[in-house]
């Protein structure tokens, strides 16, 4: 469902007329922001937007045209702040948690909350746990964290309630880069397990 939506968002962005300002996919919907003062805005903008969306649904490919990206992650206990708790609750050994997490293909459902922060589907159901009862007030930048059936990666040090199982040395959002974000909606993601030495080298 979300994959079709990402495909729709990409198709909409490619075909959008000038009065459409932004196309923003989320988990189960797409926002089409329009410029109410645009010279070419049709008289009935809602009807025109609906017609555009219908046209794009007919034209879109059903598999999202996102890229496949590899994200190095160090699952060392130094970075996996909550791995002991996840292991206790799921009954899966820490080493096996890293293996199950990096073996799966993940899919970017949405980028939101803060710049460059992805919501990824594809977590092994055996690792699915609710969010932590008490959110951490400071989750280090680069932390890879899981909750329910999803993974996220924190681009900045922020508060967060997901269980941290590793850390990537990548800078996930850099406003001086084009594109600024490592993750885009519709991308496929593989997490590649790296050692602490490799982490230090890539950092």
């Amino acid at each position: 469902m979300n994959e079709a939506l990402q495909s729709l968002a990409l198709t909409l962005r490619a075909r959008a007329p000038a009065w459409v300002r932004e196309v923003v996919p989320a988990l189960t919907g797409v926002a089409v922001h329009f410029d109410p003062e645009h010279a070419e805005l049709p008289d009935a903008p809602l009807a025109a937007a609906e017609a555009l969306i219908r046209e794009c649904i007919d034209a879109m490919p059903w598999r999202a045209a996102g890229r496949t990206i590899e994200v190095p992650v160090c699952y060392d206990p130094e970075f996996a702040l909550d791995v002991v708790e996840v292991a206790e609750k799921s009954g899966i050994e820490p080493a096996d948690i890293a293996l199950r997490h990096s073996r799966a293909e993940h899919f970017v459902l949405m980028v939101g909350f803060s710049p460059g922060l992805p919501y990824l589907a594809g977590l092994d159901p055996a690792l699915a746990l609710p969010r932590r009862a008490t959110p951490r007030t400071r989750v280090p930048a680069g932390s890879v964290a899981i909750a329910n059936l999803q993974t996220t990666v924190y681009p900045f040090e922020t508060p967060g309630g997901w269980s941290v199982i590793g850390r990537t040395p990548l800078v996930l959002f850099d406003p001086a880069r084009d594109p600024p974000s490592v993750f885009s909606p519709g991308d496929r993601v593989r997490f590649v397990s790296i050692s602490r030495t490799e982490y230090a080298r890539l950092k």
Partner: protein
Amino acid sequence: MSLRIVKPGLLTTVQDGGRRGLQHLGVVPCGAMDRVALALANALVGNQAGEAVLEITLLGPQIELEEDSLVALCGAQFEASAGEGDLPGDRPVFLQAGMRLNLRRAVRGTRAYLAVAGGIAVEPLLGSRSTYLPARFGGLEGRALQAGDSLPLAADAARLAAERYKRLALRATSRSGVHSVRWSAPALTLPEHEPIVLHAMPGRHHGEFDAASQRAFFDSLWRISPDSNRMGFRLAGATLARPRGGEILSEPTCLGTVQVPANGAPIVLMADHQTTGGYPKIAEVAGADVPRLAQLAPGGTLRFALCTLAEALELRLALKTRMDAALRAISWEYGK
């Protein structure tokens, strides 16, 4: 050529017309909270509508201008001085090199915009000079201004100031070394009296709130809570019951979206809001009314009036008509 911050004030940031086209990567447009005042301040000094300015909140900064400059202060009315004289608002003011501006406090409204001919020339990031406080980038090092900061101005700012002010010479006037004009631009966003009335369309989850909460939203007098900021204005007044189903999956949000989190106190999303949110949306404030809301401070009061999308677009058109008239009058003064 630079502008030096002697004292920063409560919250002074660099803002412009905003960052566009990156919401799908989690980057909201941000930019000036009161876009109308931004456009007027820029027009008064001969800039394009979306040039970078200082957004000044409630308690203003003290500023020193290194060279001759043409400035304009719009939006909130401030008790303000330039050197030994008063700094008049809503009009172009020519200041000689070394003059100190002291913007003491807002006497009406909350946010003022100080434009300088040529604009504030910090490096643009992702197509904008706006400070994005939540992710700490844009503007000057992604933060509010501090004492001792020096902001770059356009290299030819002094020349622009002299040239542009000369074009206004016919109706110019000088008092205590402050050179200004005998006319002013209208303040289009300042509240006449409180509570202000904001037009709002039913949000996507409006129908999922119970009838009492739907009524309470449009009947209550709402007060802006102290923990409001550029991300959102939190409202106190009534407690709305959560809709059945509770949390929703995160959905896109807009400037002016009214979310209702678990505690039942609505939040109106403002310029720095998150691009997506998981709280039910009870209403969407008409875009034309957001700049007026931006001029309320914590403690300010408001009511919501139900409107349709067509009415919201009409309000927008009406505001644009008033804006265009003001901009035409300014161009006329410049002899364009």
